[in-house]
């Protein structure tokens, strides 16, 4: 097999060195009753040209010629070509976890830069080396708040991404953490009065998302103020990290957690993406995940190293802050390259186009169609249209025009009826927006 480099002669020599005649003898320790004595029933091995043909065929059965207005936690943005060029270097993608700092400084410095970028975007003191994604990151943030406050209840805005809330429920259920949902108002924002009415000293954290699932920008200062008054932490979840390029970072948050896929990572049908978590310095020892620190070697040269490892599973085992082992290292590198490429002005400019194009789409839909735009609050690059008629009839028409007009959110919010969550980014052209509007007329 072409990935196995030893020749017949090599193998014979190795068998001799071991003192046996055949490889089969090495498996003598496996009882015969447990041996598989037939070939695996999987497709026969393919050559390289056959593999390419097969996967081209499969990829071809995924539509690439549709105009999509899907967002909802996974976003289409321009991805600079330099990212793939750099991460295709095998020095980066075939490298192991940087436990041996002397021969992993490339990975370590890049992750240190990623950590720094996240603190700059979020305005908090410290960020970890990444988590699997935003949804598990939110789960981890809630466990963290539980550890810090020793309390068992968490308030979560209903406008937090429904899949994120579902993941949190899975994480929280078995450690006795109770989740209480707080509704949204007509503006689309979390109901502050409702938080104030329900909160007490049993609440570990109040969680809001901004921009929230409906695309509405939330302001955290009042939410944080209510939370802190009762000794609870303020957690802010961000699904659309591009927004941090132009919007003020969440005010007074204790933990900002979320998804950085928007910053240089392809949509990839849902993964791999990039979770991030940032917090205040005082909570650093309660953070899950790896941390890269800056120090010196024996000769006083600058050196980066994995640090504060005693929080982690390989040392604390059952008392660890999390069970997490791998992070999303290569994706964190992609994000660092993206931010280095865009710079603060490029990032801002891109975020601006998101806002401007979304604004145009909203205006056109209001002016030219009979549907209403839900929620009066400010938005970044997503909004909700409440359709005046049943979605199914429109859906067929859009499919024929090769347009996916957005996400039908009745599956998550049945109370919002025939509603479509629409996302417009810098990659959406005016013609595409106009075609969407025409399809809605």
């Amino acid at each position, binding site marked *: 097999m072409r990935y196995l480099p030893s020749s017949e002669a090599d193998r014979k020599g190795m068998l001799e060195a071991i003192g046996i005649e055949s490889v089969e003898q090495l498996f003598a320790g496996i009882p015969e009753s447990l041996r598989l004595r037939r070939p695996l029933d999987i497709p026969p091995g393919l050559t390289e040209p056959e593999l390419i043909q097969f996967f081209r065929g499969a990829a071809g059965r995924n539509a690439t010629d549709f105009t999509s207005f899907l967002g909802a936690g996974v976003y289409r943005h321009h991805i600079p070509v330099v990212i793939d060029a750099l991460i295709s270097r095998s020095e980066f993608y075939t490298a192991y976890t940087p436990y041996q700092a002397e021969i992993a400084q490339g990975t370590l410095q890049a992750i240190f830069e990623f950590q720094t970028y996240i603190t700059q975007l979020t305005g908090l003191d410290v960020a970890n080396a990444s988590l699997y994604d935003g949804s598990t990151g939110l789960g981890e943030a809630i466990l963290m708040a539980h550890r810090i406050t020793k309390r068992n209840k968490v308030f979560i805005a209903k406008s937090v991404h429904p899949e994120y809330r579902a993941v949190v429920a899975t994480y929280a259920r078995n450690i006795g953490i109770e989740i209480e949902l707080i509704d949204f108002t007509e503006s689309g924002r979390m109901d502050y009065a409702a938080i104030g009415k329900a909160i007490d000293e049993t609440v570990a954290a109040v969680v809001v998302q901004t921009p929230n699932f409906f695309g509405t920008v939330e302001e955290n200062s009042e939410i944080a103020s209510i939370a802190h008054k009762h000794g609870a932490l303020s957690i802010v979840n961000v699904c659309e990290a591009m927004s941090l390029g132009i919007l003020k970072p969440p005010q007074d948050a204790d933990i900002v957690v979320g998804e950085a896929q928007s910053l240089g990572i392809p949509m990839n049908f849902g993964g791999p993406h990039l979770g991030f978590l940032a917090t205040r310095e005082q909570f650093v*020892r309660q953070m899950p995940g790896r941390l890269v620190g800056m120090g010196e070697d024996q000769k006083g040269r600058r050196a980066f190293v994995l640090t504060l*490892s*005693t929080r982690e599973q390989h*040392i*604390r085992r059952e*008392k660890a802050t999390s069970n997490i082992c791998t992070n999303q290292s290569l994706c964190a590198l992609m994000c660092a390259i993206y931010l280095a490429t865009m710079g603060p002005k490029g990032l801002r400019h891109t975020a601006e186009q998101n806002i401007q194009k979304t604004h145009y789409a909203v205006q056109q839909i209001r002016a030219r169609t009979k549907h209403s735009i839900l929620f009066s609050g400010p938005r970044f690059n997503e909004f909700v249209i409440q359709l005046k008629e049943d979605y199914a009839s429109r859906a067929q028409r859009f499919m024929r025009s090769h347009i996916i007009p957005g996400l039908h959110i009745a599956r998550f919010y049945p109370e919002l009826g025939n509603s479509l969550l629409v996302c417009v980014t810098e990659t959406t052209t005016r013609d595409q927006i106009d075609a969407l509007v025409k399809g809605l007329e």
Partner: protein
Amino acid sequence: MNPEGLLYTKDHEWIGITGDTATVGITLHAQEALGDVVYIELPGVGDKFEAHKSFGSVESVKAVSELFMPMSGEVTEVNSTVKDNPETLNSDPYGKGWLIRIRIANPAEASALLSAQAYDNYIATEA
């Protein structure tokens, strides 16, 4: 080797009793086994613990060790200097590296502790 005026536990803590108060720390052997101490987690003043219960932890780069109360008591003082300079625990475990001071709840518990000689024997056989 270990100071005579102190009593010891098998978990490598030492305790120096004066009347109904005592000072608690970890032994030379303990800090050697740990290596360079990087972080110390200590309780607050007023916290109460039973004997043998964990009152904190000591971390080196690659290991964490819990700290166990030699006797039951209430914490009256916490050494904040050693928290800020954990290397003191390595350099002076019996002096500046003290960890907490307690008010002893039950003086009779001292009889279960090891004398310096007994502790020396214990670590010699354990090694």
